[in-house]
């Protein structure tokens, strides 16, 4: 119990003092995970849309596989990426190991299946609703995809948030490909792991609380955005 009290107290102190090391770590966490989510959406949303409206023989198999990939263990992804970009690996010449870029790559691999699987589910629901109308009006596939993506945008925002949540909370991948190097590749989760291994549980928990506050803020901001946009426009 003593640790919990200490932790909340510490978390408050950290937030109020805007400790510069903490800010650096938070900044990197956000930079890595937000970039990963962005790339995952750029790749994953079109694929999700294609799966939602496409009908082809292996479709069921693809959907099952993508859904299963949502459960990729972060540490396994980290290991595979490490082996690929290590100096002993095929892409070692890119010199990406122990950089934020490597962390972005690993997290993107981790969350793209989530974006594909969840967006497919969302878009397929909407497609079923619109399908007969679109066929009646001979709407092209491209316009169908664009209409689905736009009309489902709030649900898709939730999909992106799910991906972000997974990315910003994982430690297994980024610690292997990033190396938790001080001032270079240390993010919130690896810092928490470090403080835990030093036995400084109160600080570790405090960092965890800060991470939660950030996640809450992002979700809150997006909810506010959704409410204001639906209130003031009907497009």
């Amino acid at each position, binding site marked *: 119990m003593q640790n919990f009290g200490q932790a909340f107290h510490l978390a408050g102190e950290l937030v109020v003092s805007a400790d510069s090391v903490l800010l650096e770590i938070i900044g990197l966490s956000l930079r890595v995970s937000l970039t990963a989510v962005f790339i995952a959406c750029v790749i994953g949303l079109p694929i999700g849309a294609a799966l939602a409206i496409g009908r082809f023989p292996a479709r069921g198999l693809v959907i099952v596989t993508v859904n299963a990939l949502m459960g990729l263990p972060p540490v396994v992804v980290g290991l595979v990426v490490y082996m690929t970009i290590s100096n002993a690996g095929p892409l070692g010449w890119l*010199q990406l190991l122990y950089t934020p870029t490597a962390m972005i790559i690993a997290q993107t691999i981790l969350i793209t299946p989530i974006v594909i699987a969840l967006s497919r589910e969302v878009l397929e629901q909407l497609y079923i609703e619109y399908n007969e109308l679109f066929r009646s009006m001979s709407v092209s596939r491209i316009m169908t995809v664009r209409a689905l993506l736009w009309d489902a945008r709030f649900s898709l925002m939730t999909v992106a948030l799910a991906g972000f949540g997974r990315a910003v909370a994982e430690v297994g991948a980024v610690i292997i490909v990033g190396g938790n190097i001080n001032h270079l590749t240390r993010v919130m989760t690896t810092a928490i792991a470090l403080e*835990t291994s030093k036995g400084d*549980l109160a600080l570790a928990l405090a960092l965890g609380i800060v991470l939660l506050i950030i996640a809450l803020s992002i979700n809150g901001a997006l909810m506010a955005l959704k409410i204001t946009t639906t209130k003031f426009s009907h497009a």
Partner: protein
Amino acid sequence: MRITSKKILIAGLLIGFFLKNVYADTILLQSTTSTANSGLYEVILPIFTASTGIHVHVVASGTGQAITNAMNGDGDVLLVHAKSAEEKFVRDGYGVQRFDVMYNDFVIVGPNNDPADIRGAQNAVKALTHISQNQSIFISRGDNSGTHRKEISLWQMSGINPLKFSGAWYRETGSGMGATLNIASGMNAYTLTDRATWLNFKNRGHLEILSESDSELFNQYGVVLVNPVLHPKVNVESARKFINWILSADGQLAIASYKIDGQQLFFPNPQP
């Protein structure tokens, strides 16, 4: 396309960003979590950087992982505390030459009420024997690290095979020193740890040092340059500077200066 002043600014920033990464002199040090968790690097590396302008990035993982990473060429220098593994590393062609850097010692920590009565034991081997006879819970690293190998050698000298009791009173965590200490603290159990990690560890619970100062508990750290013939990307010049520095009087001074509560954590003993 029109060359606007905004585009020039952006191009300049991008070039500067890349140049900064290419020309800022850095080396990558593969080390262990216990060494890093001791806080040593936060003390000695800034001194090295101030003196040479070379930045040192530390990747800390388990001993086995650090050595594997170095074998893969994912680092310029290896600094761990597993002498026979380091010597094999050089023999197998992955490293250039191994040097002794510093030593400290291991200690056996345990619950302050000491149910196995190891405080009275004459040495570490006898202490482990008491623990085994009493079937007190003992936490092992179980991860082939330097600490783990030391622990295994002590059991061998005692003639007891603790693996027979794995899962009973002998618990193998397969984890780093910090995680292992957390578990020992949580279970109020005995474990072997290096003194540096222990001094810096904040979750001691009811644990304290119960057995120490045995010559068998000697913990030697070694430094090796990753072989640039095998891995051309190694930053040889700067890595050599680091190794020379840490073996030099300046480096020794820096190491010896690191104290917690007046206790020195590492003792320099540079020797090839």
